[in-house]
């Protein structure tokens, strides 16, 4: 689905990502965990076409996407659920979803968009209840669901989620992760960026640990959960040696 080889990127003079290689197979949940400032968001921004790679190869479904624009990436089926939801606060829920359906409307027409919107309401019943409500008035958890639903409106092949758990109450976080697992069960492919390493590794198939712009560990999610370095650094489990 997605293959990245030796990626380097950053902002102005600042090199954030150093020689990153990773891949995502169809139907997988792959998570990238790491501390604040490790380069996780930079990485998904490069994939989404929001930031230029300085060096390296990016392939999406076998196609070179090194210089693809964000619009083209969305059309190819790669969507981003941005950090901090970024819903359109002054628009209602339905209009937010319609905006997410732009690429779908162009490809399949308005009927398909209507149908997809109903799918989202089934997936997120709370959004159906609030379809006429302004997005800015939703709770944090509801806004996160709206951001996810908006992304799914494009019927994407790859959903990238940047910190979906940020600022949410533990119960809501649990709900969000249940939905992510459900997405995989429906055949979706997810690239999940998380600081909440434990929750992310519990839902993911595989994971990469990003530290100061480098991948220092990778493997099956269950292996990373069992890895002592991960436990010490990200799961707050210090053993007495």
């Amino acid at each position, binding site marked *: 689905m997605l293959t990245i*080889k*030796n990626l380097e990127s950053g902002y102005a003079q600042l090199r954030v990502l150093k020689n990153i*290689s990773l*891949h995502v197979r169809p139907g997988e949940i792959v998570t990238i965990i790491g501390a604040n400032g490790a380069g996780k968001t930079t990485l998904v921004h490069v994939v989404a076409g929001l930031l230029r790679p300085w060096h390296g190869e990016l392939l999406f479904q076998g196609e070179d996407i090194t210089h693809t624009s964000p619009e083209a990436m969305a059309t190819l089926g790669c969507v981003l659920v941005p950090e901090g939801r970024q819903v359109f606060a002054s628009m209602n829920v339905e209009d937010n979803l319609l905006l997410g359906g732009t690429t779908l409307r162009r490809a399949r027409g308005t009927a398909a968009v209507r149908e997809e919107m109903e799918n989202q309401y089934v997936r997120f019943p709370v959004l159906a209840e609030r379809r006429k409500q302004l997005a800015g008035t939703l709770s944090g958890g509801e806004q996160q669901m709206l951001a996810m639903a908006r992304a799914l409106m494009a019927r994407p092949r790859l959903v990238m989620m940047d910190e979906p758990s940020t600022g949410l109450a533990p119960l809501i976080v649990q709900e969000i992760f249940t939905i992510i697992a459900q997405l995989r069960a429906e055949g979706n492919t997810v690239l999940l960026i998380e600081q909440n390493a434990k929750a992310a590794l519990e839902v993911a198939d595989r994971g990469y640990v990003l530290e100061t712009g480098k991948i220092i560990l*990778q493997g099956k999610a269950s292996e990373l959960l*069992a*890895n002592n370095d991960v436990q010490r650094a990200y799961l707050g489990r210090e053993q007495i*040696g």
Partner: protein
Amino acid sequence: MLWEPDKERIQADELKQLQLERLQSTLYRVGTHVPFYRKKFEELRFNHDDIRSLDDLRRLPFTVKQDLRDNYPYGLFAVPLRDVVRVHASSGTTGQATVVGYTKNDINTWSNLVARIITAAGVSKNDVIQIAFGYGLFTGGFGLHYGAELIGCSVIPISSGNTRRQIQIMQDFKSTALVSTPSYSLVLADTMMEMGINPNGLSLRYGLFGGEPWSESMRREVNQKLGILATDNYGLSEVMGPGISGECLECNGLHINEDHFLVEVLDPVTLEPVPEGEIGELVITTLTKEAFPMIRYRTRDLTRILPGSCPCGRSFRRMERVMGRSDDMLIIKGVNIFPLQIEKVLFDVEGTQPHYQIVVEREHHADRVTVLVEVTEALFSDQMRKQRQIVDQIKRRLSSELGVAIEVKLVEEKTLERSEGKAKRVIDKRSF
């Protein structure tokens, strides 16, 4: 049968990507956590970020057995000892033992890779597997044990030694698979004869052999004498133990678990890659080990990569069975000779036993090689003329095969020392 079909049938480009990712993170870890590698990388002005393709591996330093000895016991571990759940040591066939460690994840990976090898050799959860490798510091016993248990075999952890008891248990417990060195399987076969036990009356069906080089003719001998299907598997404790590669039922080369090990075949003298398909020294880099990663470990084992794909469906490349050790290689009058080349000739000669020893001496600055071969009792006691014929035949074939003259001496059955582990084939009396 495949243990992990999706992984063992991985596509070439997907495998390359996986290997690169794993190599990059392994290099980061050894460069950060292992002082030995950190120093070597600094000396070479090598930054782990510089690895952009698998070919860049060639810029990395080698690791040799002596490096393990110099860092005895824990110097090369990449994790603190509290993260290590198991310690093994090399069998120490030559010199001081070397120590290796495993994290919990390493043990899981190891079991899984051995499970692949055992499955490839035809064994399933319905089998009763008798593990006659030594248990203890040696990786053979425990390595096979955990893999077999993961599959769900009924495991008999009998360990090595006590041949008659092995046979008794094999008979009573109805073992269907045997794990041992190939030479020990012949010791078992001979002992069965002595005990008046017909191997065909046993339940034994599969033999999983490793730990020492053996030839195709020896396989035929084992198959025929024990009535089993013998496969070869390969490993060495410095890299992990068993589980690195193993034969499938096609019996045509050992599939390398390439998603966990990166292999190179190099000329042992120039250390440059040999052309694809030619014999050289196997050099291994681990891709997933946590506690004891190895970068370009020189195994001293000689093999080659076999061309073409395998009908079994595994996409991993195959290595030929190990043909000997680069430091066992005898240089006789300037010719490189491997004990296995001699073994091959012996097996093709009727009347000889699969037990032999190669003695190398130096007289008046000239090397002399004598091969001691056991022959059947009948032949040894009275058929002088037949004996002469056999000696001539072996001599002729050896000299045409190897290009140097080799003395041949027939000895009575069971005069050569038997080994329960690795057979000692070469006795080099030369002093340099």
